[in-house]
């Protein structure tokens, strides 16, 4: 049964919560700097942080690798696990 907290975006996927904002603030990193480092735009980073856009596997990997963490440590898949 679908969790009532799960939302669907225009990607026709599920919203995934992220810890990108906290990780950025810990390292005193701006959205622009992170975007430049991982090969995307500031607007995409903003959308990912507020949960409007779900990063692709490649982008998620690049972001996680930038912070020297795993994808699961950066992105929260709890809601997807609850659905299953």
């Amino acid at each position, binding site marked *: 049964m679908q969790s009532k907290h799960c939302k669907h975006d225009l990607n026709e996927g599920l919203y995934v919560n992220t810890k990108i904002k906290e990780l950025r603030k810990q390292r005193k990193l701006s959205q622009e700097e992170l*975007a430049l480092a991982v090969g*995307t*735009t500031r607007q*995409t980073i903003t*959308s990912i942080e507020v949960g409007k*856009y779900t990063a692709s596997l490649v982008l998620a990997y690049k972001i996680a690798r930038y912070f020297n963490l795993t994808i699961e440590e950066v992105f929260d898949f709890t809601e997807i696990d609850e659905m299953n």
Partner: protein
Amino acid sequence: MEKYRKTIKKRMILCGILAAVSVGLGIFHQSEFFDLVSFATRNEAVAGFQAGLLSGFGILALFLLYKYGIAIKDETKIKMLYNKEHDERQNLIRQKAGMPLLMITSCIMIFAGIIAGYFNEIIFYTLVLAAMIQLTLGAMVKIYCMKKM
């Protein structure tokens, strides 16, 4: 990034050619020589539209030339340009807005309208209006997707 730098240089050359052609055609269009070689009655609406379109292309070409000229001198700016062009979210938005097919069909319709305009004014207006509506709808969808995503 070197490969992209070469792409930018090629685009700058194309923009330069487009700007020169726009200016050249604009001068030709306004000159008396155009009336001498015209094989159909000169329609003022079509002529005005052509002049506006040529001016628009020329201005766009000059703007792009300036933008690429600035980017090519700065490593950070060229990287930002590259990221913007290859951004997955932007590409998804473009796909949902029907690009680039929408742009191609609209250009074909405008071009066909200009040609048809030399023979029939109504066909010119119909095609140009249809192209404008198509582009407007595509832009609206793009804006909506940008807000939602």
